[in-house]
């Protein structure tokens, strides 16, 4: 029998048992839809991580103290006192792959303005910090290198801090606020960046010259970290090597001695976060695939029922000239039609779910063509695999017995 006739035949057979066909498809529909949705959620979170990381500066390099063991007790990296302004100066001089560099001395505390107060953190940096972190000034001005030298008590506020300290919409520029006990004059407001991917409010900061923060707030000569940017994204690795060499030299570390600092690039962070999200996606997809397999078993079950139910029809077809292969194809195509129709509906459902989810749950989703192609192929294969045995059983029936089957 011609394939076109077989397809028409399968369609007729399915039309006769619409509800049954639909219920059989349901397993496939749910399986495909969930695979696509899971993969689009995974892809979406991966992309939004990448976006937010590169919005922080994709060629950013972070240098932090690393806990060694003074006196045997390990200490937290941030408590370590290893990074000083000398390191920054040396790096500026000796690391050609580094474009910008800024120390960071930060402290948390209460910011107060008039009757309002707000718990936040102050970050002591130099003017290059803005460019490294891809920050910009919305109103007012950034402090200058001179302000840094003179430890000027000036600061810029993030939008969240502005909203909480000046709830009535006053212009913060020129106002005096206090951070702890230290008064600062507000000279600018930062452009809002919104929430980071890790749920952190990136606008909940005050930035001020690092000298001021070190002397007035922290009373320390050490930095919690140093931020730098490589001249190009692909120069990151070279920059990391330079930083390591220079810092080992300035810290007078002997060969074989452990680094008392660590250097991280944004690319590393990206890989790390992506691998976590890939793992989650793989896990969710695996769970979703199980329902696809269960859907396939449903098809197999129904096809067996269908073959038994239509034994006489098979006998008749054989007695008027259907060969084994004709019967086999008839049932196989029916199974494939079920799975592919289910697949199409599942794909549509998965796409709609991926479109609805961002507005309902606020999760980013990105529909990948790959997931559609893959789940569709899996569907077709499922149909063939689970439809084959019932079809084979049908094709091997003895026409004499099939005709007399009650």
């Amino acid at each position, binding site marked *: 029998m011609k394939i076109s006739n077989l397809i028409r035949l399968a369609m007729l057979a399915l039309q006769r048992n619409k509800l049954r066909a639909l219920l059989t498809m349901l397993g496939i529909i749910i399986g495909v839809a969930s695979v696509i949705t899971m993969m689009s959620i995974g892809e979406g979170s991966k992309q939004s991580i990448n976006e937010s990381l590169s919005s922080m500066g994709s060629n950013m390099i972070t240098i932090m103290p690393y806990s060694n063991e003074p006196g045997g007790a390990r200490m937290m990296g941030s408590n370590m006192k290893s990074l000083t302004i000398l390191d920054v100066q040396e790096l500026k001089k000796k690391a050609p792959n580094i474009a910008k560099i800024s120390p960071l001395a930060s402290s948390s505390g209460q910011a107060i303005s008039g009757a309002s107060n707000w718990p936040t953190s102050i970050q002591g940096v130099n003017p290059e910090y803005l460019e490294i972190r891809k920050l910009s000034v919305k109103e007012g001005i950034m402090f200058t290198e001179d302000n840094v030298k003179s430890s000027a008590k000036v600061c810029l506020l993030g939008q969240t801090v502005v909203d909480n300290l000046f709830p009535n919409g006053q212009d913060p520029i020129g106002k005096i606020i206090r951070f702890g006990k230290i008064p600062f004059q507000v000279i600018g407001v930062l452009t809002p960046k919104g929430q980071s991917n890790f749920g952190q409010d990136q606008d909940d900061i005050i930035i001020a010259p690092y000298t001021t923060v070190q002397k007035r707030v922290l009373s320390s000569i050490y930095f919690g970290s140093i931020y730098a940017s490589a001249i190009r994204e692909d120069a990151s690795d070279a920059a990391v090597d330079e930083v390591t060499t220079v810092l080992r030299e300035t810290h007078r570390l002997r060969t074989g001695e452990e680094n008392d600092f660590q250097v991280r690039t944004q690319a590393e962070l990206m890989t790390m976060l992506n691998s976590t999200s890939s793992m989650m996606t793989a896990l969710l997809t695996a769970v979703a695939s199980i329902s696809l397999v269960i859907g396939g078993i449903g098809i197999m079950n129904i096809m067996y029922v269908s073959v038994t139910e239509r034994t006489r029809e098979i006998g*008749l077809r054989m*007695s*008027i*000239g259907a*060969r084994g292969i004709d019967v086999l194809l008839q049932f196989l195509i029916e199974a494939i039609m079920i799975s592919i129709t289910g697949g199409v509906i599942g794909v549509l459902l998965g796409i709609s779910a991926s479109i609805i989810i961002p507005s309902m749950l606020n999760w980013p989703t990105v529909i990948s063509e790959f997931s559609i192609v893959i789940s569709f192929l899996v569907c077709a294969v499922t149909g063939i695999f689970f439809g084959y045995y019932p079809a084979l059983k049908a094709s091997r029936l003895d026409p*004499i017995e099939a*005709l007399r089957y009650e």
Partner: protein
Amino acid sequence: MSNNKILEIQNVKREFTMGTEIVRALKGVSFDVNAGEFVTIMGSSGSGKTTLLNMLGCLDKPTDGIYMLDNVNVKELSRDELAKLRNTKIGFVFQAYNLLPRTSALENVELPLLYNPTIGSKERRERAIAALEAVKLGERLDHTPNQLSGGQQQRVAIARALVNEPVMILADEATGNLDTRTSYEIMSLMQELNGQGKTIVFVTHEPDIAAFSTRTVMLRDGKVQKDLINDSRKSAKEALASLPATDDY
């Protein structure tokens, strides 16, 4: 004149193995059927009638002996070749009609042609319509089996048997499910087709049905008991006319 012989059966034997026991359903049957004959095969149950019918219909092969259908030795054919032979040379009519449910009369009749790749969809349709017209159902092409009476369903089945222009129509108790009047109608149709030159082999156990044929082969215990030419052939049309006009009461 071997060309005139549609069927040649020589000493055909068929044995079944049931566990350790061998059941010999046919113990050496021989007869020929010539083109244009209307043969009834009769016998009580257990006479090997059904086994012979399966053999004649190429659904089964003899254990021993020779069965030539239209000069083809059936014993040498594979499963697929047998299917092709059934498709082109034999038209089956069953006791239970065996029409596909929820499928129109036209599509039921088209069915054998669907398995013949040399016939296109247009020719298929034309031939199916012609076959239905030949059984006087030209008005009911789109009716499904449950919209047709038993006699009409059997006529659709006969149309289906005719549509591939077989060398032989093989009927298995084709009137077994029908009342007397309708059986006579079917037999009258069969006689008409026979009159047009169709070879018909009709398996039955009803002697009054056999009376409409030109020849009767009686089977008993797996052997041919009698093979008689029917000289006093009855006309089904006349028998129909002689029945009480209506069954109204």
